[in-house]
């Protein structure tokens, strides 16, 4: 990463380099003092600079609270500027819902002392983050310039927090990843669910634990929220539609993959399984099915093919 930065720095001095890519962000109001910056409902790609996750901005008397920080240093800076414009105050706190880079790498743009994450996510920053960084530089090139994920200095613990007169309730869960944070704004009943909930976009499973994910969805369904901001896809104006949709997908996916293996299908054939019509409204369903085959198939082989020799 350091070598890359130096290389990019050297390239920046060359006259033929095109202008740096620029994030054009727009916020949509969700509830009183809450906005969402919608991510593109697409895979991470040069065309979107990695801005595919939903980022929430919450106004408080102490400053803006960001739920997730974007994919890159520049994405984080652009979000900070937008938050300031919307709330009239600088960012006072950033909560990272989980380590996946489209949500977390923009923390690069903030002092570590403003960034809060669960201890599990903070530990991953010094582990898995290096691999994610390599992958993102490859996919996003110059969008990533200067991105260095700091170890979050603040610990996000389950329970209520009071920031600038606004009460947020933090929930520490897992299932989409090894550690997932959800945030409930108590005044407006807005649940910011991170990637535990997808809406009108097929859920991604690269580090998923499906039984834990179901338990997390059960918890999220019972918080009394008015509406929900998913990690990806449009805001759900109802308490439970997106939660039910996410559960329906993983409840279909898991037995479908087991049945495919038990029927003697190959990975390629499993990735081409028909997707039930009830998921017709989900973006990138085929892509996520093929990714999920890759995530789960080797473990299914180990579990479901009998030992026959050695």
């Amino acid at each position, binding site marked *: 990463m350091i070598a890359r930065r130096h290389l990019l720095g050297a390239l920046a001095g060359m006259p033929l380099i095109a202008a740096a890519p620029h994030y054009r962000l727009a916020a949509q109001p969700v509830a009183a003092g809450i906005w969402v910056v919608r991510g593109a409902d697409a895979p991470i790609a040069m065309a979107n600079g990695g801005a595919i996750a939903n980022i929430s901005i919450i106004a408080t008397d102490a400053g803006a609270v960001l739920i997730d920080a974007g994919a890159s240093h520049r994405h984080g800076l652009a979000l900070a500027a937008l938050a300031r414009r919307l709330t009239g105050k600088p960012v006072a706190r950033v909560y990272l819902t989980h380590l996946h880079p489209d949500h977390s790498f923009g923390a690069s743009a903030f002092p570590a002392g403003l960034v809060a994450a669960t201890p599990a996510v903070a530990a991953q920053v010094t582990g898995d983050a290096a691999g994610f960084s390599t992958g993102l530089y490859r996919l996003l090139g110059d969008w990533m310039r200067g991105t260095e994920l700091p170890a979050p200095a603040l610990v996000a613990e389950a329970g209520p927090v009071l920031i600038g007169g606004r009460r947020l309730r933090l929930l520490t869960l897992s299932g989409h990843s090894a550690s997932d944070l959800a945030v409930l704004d108590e005044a407006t009943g807005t649940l910011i669910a991170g990637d535990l909930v997808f809406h009108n976009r097929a859920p991604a499973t690269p580090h998923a634990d499906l039984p834990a994910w179901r338990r997390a969805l059960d918890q999220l369904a019972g918080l009394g929220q008015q509406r929900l901001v998913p990690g990806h896809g449009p805001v759900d104006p109802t308490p439970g539609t997106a939660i039910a949709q996410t559960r329906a997908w993983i409840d279909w996916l898991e037995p479908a993959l087991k049945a495919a293996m038990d029927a003697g299908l190959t990975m*390629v054939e499993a990735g081409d399984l028909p997707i039930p019509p009830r998921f017709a409204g989900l973006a990138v369903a085929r892509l996520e099915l093929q990714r999920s085959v890759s995530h789960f198939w*080797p473990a299914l082989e180990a579990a479901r093919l009998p030992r026959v020799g050695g």
Partner: protein
Amino acid sequence: MILLAAPVVAAPEGARPDDPLQSPFLPTVLQLVLPEGARVRFDDRVKVQFPAIAENQRQFPVQVDARAVPGVKRIIIFADLNPIQKAVEFTPHDAEAFIAIRIKLDQRTPVRAAVEVADGSWLVAGGWIDAAGGGCSAPPVSRVKGDWAQSLMQLRGRLWSTPGQRVARLALAVRHPMDTGFVDNVPSYWLESLQLRADGRLLADLALNASVAEDPAIMLMPHLMEGESVTVRGRDSGGVELAGRVAGQSAIPAGAP
């Protein structure tokens, strides 16, 4: 290795004019993976199928279906820009011209199959796939965990068949680190051959290279009589052997491809 690390350039100097993938390295790769003087033409009857994205560059599923080609003698799966280009050579003695396997990808590359037909010429097809680097140069999971020796050459398998039809399906999974030799202080070490028989009748031979993914997993379509089982013999590059028998055919459900 240095040559292989060069980026794919927009103008593919050196590519064969008839190569649908316009890969600059193909002429060299064909010399490396096919017999000397092999006659090659591109033919879409060879179906090379894989997912739209390489989610895991260490475990990329590739399926080759050459059942539309009569008289297939051999199938070779290779990736032009892998440091070990040839992944597997499959000889279907008494099996369909079909193989599914997982391979490693070291970068964006064409992934192809070359199919030898009766007159000794080769039919080639494939596609480009983008991939993160390192599929061939990252340590295998079992090396990192340190448990590779406990499970070395363990064999899993299962058979599926339809009553009255001779084409069965056979899944095999062998535990092996498949070391490429590109990881510091770990020499190359791989499962190099598998031979399948039924009642002494030779069904298929597979010659594998270390660019096959760790813990090789393979699906074939052998020709079997009702109730027949398949015996498997294998050997790795260190001379360790495996032997196993896959019995008990399960029914292929109606509607399966």
